[in-house]
């Protein structure tokens, strides 16, 4: 099957406008005869469900949490980009587009990214109209901050809780439609398979997580908005329940899976504290605006700090190595995430790590506190040479900006980040890869769409900060509502899709068989036992730096682990009711397949780009070395029974508006 991305013709800046002018529309009277299933209620799924219901479609929304408001978009901290140019600092739609393509290391589809930049401004207008309390300046207008990989301030934010506020905005829009009966909300439900009838996605099989009942739900189209697959690493900044099952099930039913190896390792997370660790906590990238990252310049000092004989504050300026500022003078601490993460790993691998395990660097606010303190002292007419007063004033400013993050750090680490620098280390955060979609956000299964983090389309090999919220809401509020109408227009006379067809029967049976197998397996190890093992293989061999030998080992080890899992996993309790171990088992079963495809994709991509760093392909000074001649394509994998048999399809990436160059943040 040849991949058709369905990118409209014309110049990159006209494509979306022309497209909208010429698509088929469904009239309002017919929309109420069409059903749409939306799986996942984060920024993408929540905004899509609300908007589709407003348009008049009957929406059936599903989430595994007890309320749509809990989706993991809620945890996004830093902000959301939009090309508003409110700061007058030279921003524009083209610049946001350009920064995103460059930040993605030239592995994203130009047409999609431009569309994203175009609708970014509408998102801010929409959210403010909904009552989302974004941060404001004293004059009453919206405030902005800068984020990694950009030279302008285009990030809108709500203290350190931007994701929460935007998600609650989408949730409120959903609530209005739930109240009107236009969205039928299914909380505590998990999609366990896709149903295809006559070649088109026509429904899902879901498990009611409270009663254990297996349910059939039909629709004219199915939208997957189930997020990313970072939890394949076990430890990540994802929520405990975040999973790839919906995305993986559609993959097994024919949706190609694109670029699974593009995974973002976020540079500023709280380091691992012990074997009991269940998840990792992010410290927003916005902290890099004011925090300076460093390790000791001399290895003796690093050793002394690890042994508890010295403290960070004992080291003078000359004894510190602000390695990002040293290596990347132009962007300094604000280099993109992939670059910052690798630089931290490089220093720690070289022996300069500052915590017990040697896997941590400092993020220091002392300079920012002094800078802000002096500013405040000047404003208030206080003597700026009074260090104590300045520190107090500066601490207040930092507290106002990042208070909740500092408190979070304090509660976890039990150390005051206002007086001694934070310790941070990279952790798995976001997956740029995902189900392949065309320009319409439709997968290779007709009628099955994929939006937000669950698709692959906009971030290439590396996502810039504050772009995930932008993409989720762009897809859900402003893109899918157009493209899905074009797809549904021939279906207006179809009537309700029956759920008693052989296709539903077969899909339901498959799900029931899998559950029965788990319940009767009688193994000896818990699901977490296998999940932790998978995570370790992934982190050690398919993590921040990869090589062919490690990847080959990982592929074999994951396949063997999968076999052991099916033989030896133990799921206690009953499937006829609430059973969290069973939920985990069905999710980890899918991660055990996805992980292998992930490694296979990483092995085939003989270049380094963005979050995919192959040790064999680097420049003399350790930067990622792309191979545009051979790898400027999207790798879309077709399922053929086992991950090892997956077939590669290539979508060549064509760059008309942006010239391919080596990313340079120096």
């Amino acid at each position, binding site marked *: 099957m040849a991949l058709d991305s369905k990118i409209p013709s014309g110049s990159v800046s006209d494509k979306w406008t022309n497209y909208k002018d010429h698509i088929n529309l469904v009239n309002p009277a017919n929309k109420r005869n069409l059903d749409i299933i939306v799986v996942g209620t984060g920024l993408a799924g929540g*905004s899509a469900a609300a908007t589709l219901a*407003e348009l008049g479609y009957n929406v059936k929304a599903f989430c595994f*949490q*007890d*309320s749509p408001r*809990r*989706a*993991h978009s809620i*945890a996004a901290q830093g902000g959301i980009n939009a090309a*508003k140019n409110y700061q007058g600092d030279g921003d524009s739609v083209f610049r946001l587009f350009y920064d995103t393509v460059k930040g993605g290391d030239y592995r994203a589809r130009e047409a999609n990214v431009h569309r994203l930049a175009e609708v970014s401004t*509408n998102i801010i*207008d*929409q959210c*403010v*109209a*909904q*009552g989302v*309390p974004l*941060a*404001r*300046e*004293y004059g*009453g*207008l919206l405030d902005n901050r800068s984020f990694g990989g950009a030279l302008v301030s285009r990030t809108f934010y*709500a203290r350190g*809780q931007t994701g*929460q*506020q935007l998600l*609650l905005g989408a949730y*409120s*829009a959903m609530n*209005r439609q*739930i*109240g009107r009966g236009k969205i039928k909300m299914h*909380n505590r439900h998990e999609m366990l398979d896709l149903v295809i009838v006559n070649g088109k996605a026509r429904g899902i099989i879901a498990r009611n997580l*409270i009663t254990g009942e297996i349910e059939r739900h039909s629709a004219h189209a199915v939208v997957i908005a189930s997020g990313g697959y970072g939890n394949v690493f076990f430890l990540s900044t994802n*929520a*405990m329940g975040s999973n790839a099952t919906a995305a993986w099930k559609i993959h097994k039913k024919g949706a190609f899976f694109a670029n699974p190896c593009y995974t973002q390792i976020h540079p500023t997370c709280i380091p691992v*504290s*012990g074997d*009991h*660790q*269940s*998840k990792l*906590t992010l410290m927003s990238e916005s902290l890099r605006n004011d925090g300076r990252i460093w390790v000791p310049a001399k290895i003796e000092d690093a050793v002394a700090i690890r042994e508890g004989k010295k403290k960070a504050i004992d080291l003078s300026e000359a004894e510190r190595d602000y390695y990002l500022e040293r290596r990347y003078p132009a962007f300094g601490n604000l280099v993109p995430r992939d670059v910052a993460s690798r630089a931290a790993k490089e220093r720690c691998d070289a022996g300069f790590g500052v915590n017990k395990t040697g896997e941590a660097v400092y993020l220091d606010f002392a300079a920012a506190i002094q800078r802000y303190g002096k500013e405040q002292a000047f404003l208030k007419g206080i003597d700026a040479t009074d260090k104590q007063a300045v520190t107090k004033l500066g601490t207040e400013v930092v507290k106002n900006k990042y208070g909740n993050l500092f*408190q*979070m750090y304090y*509660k976890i680490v*039990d150390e005051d980040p206002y007086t001694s620098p934070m310790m941070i280390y990279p952790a798995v955060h976001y997956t740029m890869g995902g189900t392949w979609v065309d320009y319409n956000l439709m997968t290779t299964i007709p009628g099955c769409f994929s939006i937000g983090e669950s698709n692959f389309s906009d971030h290439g090999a590396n996502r810039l900060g504050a772009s995930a919220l932008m993409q989720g809401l762009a897809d859900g*509020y*402003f893109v899918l*509502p157009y493209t899905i109408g074009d797809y549904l227009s021939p279906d207006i006379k179809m009537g309700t899709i029956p759920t008693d067809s052989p296709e539903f029967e077969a899909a339901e049976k498959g799900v029931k068989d899998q559950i029965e197998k788990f319940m009767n397996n009688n193994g000896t190890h*818990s699901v977490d036992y296998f999940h932790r093992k998978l995570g370790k293989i992934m982190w050690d061999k398919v993590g921040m730096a990869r090589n062919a030998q490690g990847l080959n080992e990982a592929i074999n080890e994951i396949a063997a682990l999968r076999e052991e899992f099916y033989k030896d996993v*133990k799921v*206690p*309790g009953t499937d006829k*009711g*609430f059973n*969290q*171990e069973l939920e985990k088992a069905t999710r980890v079963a899918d991660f055990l397949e996805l992980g292998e495809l992930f490694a296979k994709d990483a092995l085939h991509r003989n270049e380094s780009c963005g979050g995919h760093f192959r040790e064999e392909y680097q420049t003399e000074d350790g930067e990622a070395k792309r191979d545009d001649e051979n790898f400027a394509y999207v790798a879309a994998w077709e399922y053929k029974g086992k991950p090892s048999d997956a077939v590669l399809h290539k979508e060549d990436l064509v760059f008309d508006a942006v010239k391919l160059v080596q990313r340079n943040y120096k």
Partner: protein
Amino acid sequence: MKLTLKIWRQKNAQDKGAMVDYKIDGIEPDMSFLEMLDVFNEDLMSKGGEPVAFDHDCREGICGMCSLYINGEAHGPDRGVTTCQLHMRMFKDGDTITIEPFRAAAFPVVKDLVVNRSAFDRIQHAGGFISVNTSGNTIDANTIPINKKDADEAFDAATCIGCGACVASCKNSSAMLFVAAKVSQYALLPQGRIEATDRVLNMVSQMDAEGFGNCTNTGACEVECPKGISLENIARMNREYMSASLKG
């Protein structure tokens, strides 16, 4: 650390349920409370038992999924945190820890420590929104300047995570703090004023219909709220409700 855990076990909504005592060893102060329960459940399963069900998801204090009534306090003894942010360093070696679900008539138990908080969603369906459709043609975001104080106060109210600690802490199982947070957020913003009258009447009416109790100003909700939502919001909602009732 060695601990004694007294945990509420209940098979399903119909089951009567009871407290069960357990012993656990090898707990480290750096573990979060939920990581302690993970370790406990692993241990229980290895001995052929069924793990204790508890709600949790983000494990960073923002999703509002985790609950638990620990030693008589919602989200346990620490202040300004959810259970997932509570660490074992708050306890001492040899302690006995009592763990119950959030109890309220409007929050029926699903299993063990898991409760059904859908009543909160239904209150939001009744008015927790501004009626604006997605169009891409709403006015430019900076056309409505909002003074920073109002914007900040609206934000403070909007940080409610909907966990239900306020209800669990209240002797009347009142949901006033939760409802007031949403009413306040919109009441403080010009965008929200337009529907303010209907919103407060509808949300309060749904709150009553769900079986939450009345507010008697004990302030326990504010003390236990992991996000520090202020009682001032309840006062604001009362004012809004009074003036809306008069407009009738």
